[in-house]
């Protein structure tokens, strides 16, 4: 299926760069250069996903998002130069689905677009065939019977240790495990303390299931306390 993506940014170069990436990946794109134009296009066309800049003339991305959320639930990814936590929280609270800070890595943007679209179209209708053996969190599905893990519908190959760590975290979403606890529970050996083996394994695991391992969505580092699986 051909997805329609609306790119909205007042910088035309950024719009055309994104256009090149998205078109080469097989999406159909529409362009808008401020919030009002974006609203107009969304009214006229069938749009599946919006990439929205925050700082724009006439109507900024936050107000446009709020306006869109009154009637539509299309995924919206905010693109912005503002990198402060407060800005991110505001954007996500107003109804955006994801948040990418400029300057962004185009590969990352593509991955996020793909992830959002898959969740919006495919995963939305899959809830019914869910079995008790499948653990789910956001885009991650872990089937303990088949010992298989999929992220946004794509299979991921994990080592047994990584699999067991993920299983432990998926079973207890939101709970913080220290490295020592993870070591004891996964390796079944008493922890000797001060070992960064666990940390290394978790980093590998993150690289496999996260879009941007430096800003993880699922496996969060709680500095000084341990790791946890964020409920998404």
């Amino acid at each position, binding site marked *: 299926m051909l997805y329609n993506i609306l790119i909205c940014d007042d910088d035309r170069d950024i719009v055309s760069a994104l256009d090149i990436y998205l078109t080469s990946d097989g999406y159909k794109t529409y362009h808008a250069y401020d919030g009002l134009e974006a609203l107009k296009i969304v009214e006229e066309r069938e749009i599946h996903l919006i990439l929205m800049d925050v700082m724009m003339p006439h109507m900024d991305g936050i107000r446009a998002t709020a306006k869109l959320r009154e009637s539509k639930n299309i995924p919206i990814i905010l693109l912005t130069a503002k990198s402060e936590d407060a800005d991110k929280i505001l954007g996500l609270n107003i109804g955006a689905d994801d948040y990418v800070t400029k300057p962004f890595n185009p590969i990352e943007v593509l991955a996020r677009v793909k992830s959002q679209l898959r969740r919006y179209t495919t995963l939305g209708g899959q809830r019914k065939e869910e079995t008790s053996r499948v653990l789910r969190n956001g885009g991650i599905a872990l089937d303990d019977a088949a010992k298989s893990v999929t992220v946004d519908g794509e299979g991921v190959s994990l080592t047994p240790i990584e699999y067991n760590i993920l299983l432990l975290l998926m079973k207890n979403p939101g709970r913080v495990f220290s490295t020592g606890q993870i070591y004891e529970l996964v390796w079944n050996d008493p922890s000797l303390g001060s070992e960064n083996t666990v940390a290394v394994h978790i980093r590998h695991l993150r690289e496999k299931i996260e879009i941007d391992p430096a800003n993880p969505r699922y496996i969060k580092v709680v500095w*000084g306390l341990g790791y946890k699986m964020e409920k998404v």
Partner: protein
Amino acid sequence: MKIRFTSPQGRAALTLLCLVTTALAFWTGLFTMAQWDNLWSGGDYVHSYSIYAPMNRYAYMADQVRDLCQAQLWQGGLTYTDQQRLGNLTKALSPERTNYRFEIHDQAGKLLYSNLPEGESMDQVAAAQLSEYTLVQGDDLAQNDYSVYDEASELYDKMVYLADGTYVRCKPAEQPGEYNSYGWRSDGEDWWDYEPAMDTRIRTVTLTTQDGVSWPLTADDYFMEDYRDYMEFQQYLPAVAAAAVVTLTLSVALLIPFCRSAGRRRGQDGLVLNWQDRVPLDLYLCLFVVLITLLLAAGDSITYSINQGGQRPTAYVGLGVFTVATDGLCLALLHTLAVRCKAGGLFRNTVLWRLCARVCRFFREVAANWSVIRRPVLTFLLYLLMTVITIPTVVLVPVWQGVVLWLLCRWARQWRAVREGTARIVGGEPDDKIDTAKMYRDLREHAGQLNDLGSAIGNAVEERLKSERFKAELITNVSHDLKTPLTSIINYVDLLKKTGVEDPKALEYIEVLDRKSQRLKKLTEDLVEASKASTGALTVNKERLGFIQLLDQALGEYEEKFEKSGLSPVCTAPDHELYVEADGRHLWRVIDNLLGNCVKYAMPGTRVYLDVKAWDGNVVLSVKNVSREPLNIPADRLMERFVRGEESRTTEGSGLGLSIARSLTELQGGTFRLDIDGDLFKAVVSFPECRALTAAPPL
């Protein structure tokens, strides 16, 4: 509440009304008070107090009759004028001409005089009263006695003066030690003393006067006149009394808005003072008293003329003018008092107060010019002087000493206020002001200077904060503006890579572009963070963290990077967890920067030593590595922004890492230190150890 009567017409009307009602209230009230007894007695003249007015006029005449009768007894006859007086009095007091009845008895009960007609006795008389009076004769004779020297006996004889003008010579030897019949006593040689009680020349008699009114009145006398007036007043007294009550009530009701509106003008805020309200109060009162005295004197003569000459219209007009003038003066006084009360400082605007204030100021200025030594000495002398003055009065001793104690306590309290204010300024509240009102001069000056100092510091601090904040804001905004074009650069460089360029030179150039644009990205991010960390614009959420846990996690993140750089980390840590109070994300950034530094600048193939230990209540982490390039600048300079080892300029990194690490460490209450020993680079981060909780981290 809205204030009425502020327009000129309203004020004039109110004043006029007040004038009329108060004048009416005064006269009706006065009349009612004068006839108070009449109002309540209900026409019972005999038992009213009014009857005593004519009674006393006749009693005065009766007293004269009494004196003349007794004089006649003593002297055996009267002089011609006295005879005429007695005759006139007898005529005036005859029962035909008066209703007054009286009898005079001496102490033996003998009747001396009576004006009772035949067949009447004192028992039938109304309003009867009894009075006693003692008459004395010859008490002035002893003043004329004198002493004479007798050459024969060589003693003084006493010449005693008798009522008939002759002298009797008494010798001291006649009755030694006893009073003679003239009240004199001697010891046989010298005269001792005089005793009036023993003087037979003095005669006394106590007379009783019984008087009253023959009721009903028959003769046309003072009683009759008074009674007629009394009965006449009786008719319209209730009306006058009612008028008095009404006008008095009305006066009060009018005087309240009169006082409230005093000094207010429609369309003007605040009080309006005229010349009356500006004159010193005591001068004003003096003028008032003088004018009132003059008016009362005039009023007295007017009423006198009315009483004398009956109904003359000019006199009544005069009385009206007098009343209005006096009333007007009183109202003017009330008005100015009301305005002064509202304006405040009722007693400050007086000549007396100004005089006192000037004297006080003079003394204070004199005292201010005393030298440091003279002041306590003179104060002490003043204290001693007052103590000496108060000691003889006993009662004033505790009062004076109490005053001194109070003054000392006051001084101590003010001194404490100054000290507390100073402590506050030092303690970081430079804009906190010491209340200098009501302080002693020296302390006030001192506190004022401290206040100035405090506000100067406060301004400086605020200026600095403002400029820091401005700088941070500027950096944030500039970096936002930089990020947008940077996005395009990064994206198009990436697109360029994918266009299938074959030329190795072009590929190399693209690689440079790619690297440099990535570095520019990192630089802008670090710039924002460094400015925020150094101005403290970051929020810090402190929690209890496992320091070794965090270090493990950080090493896990860096494992591959170390491998890539050919570095091997050597970590020594105690086998138990060490806890600190810090914000995990900020602490991670500190360690991230330190490890990132090692990766960037350490000599490949060397070891990086990471030591964690608890030392002196602190958790101390030291990171040691050997620098790839010679470190030819001092450690302190390394922590400044944009400074890197001279030879490291070309490598990646922004030069902000150590600056950020130090700012973040200090923001969380830790300390950050750098040591350079040749090529050995050593960073030491230390945080206070948190030992309050010994429980294991949450499971």
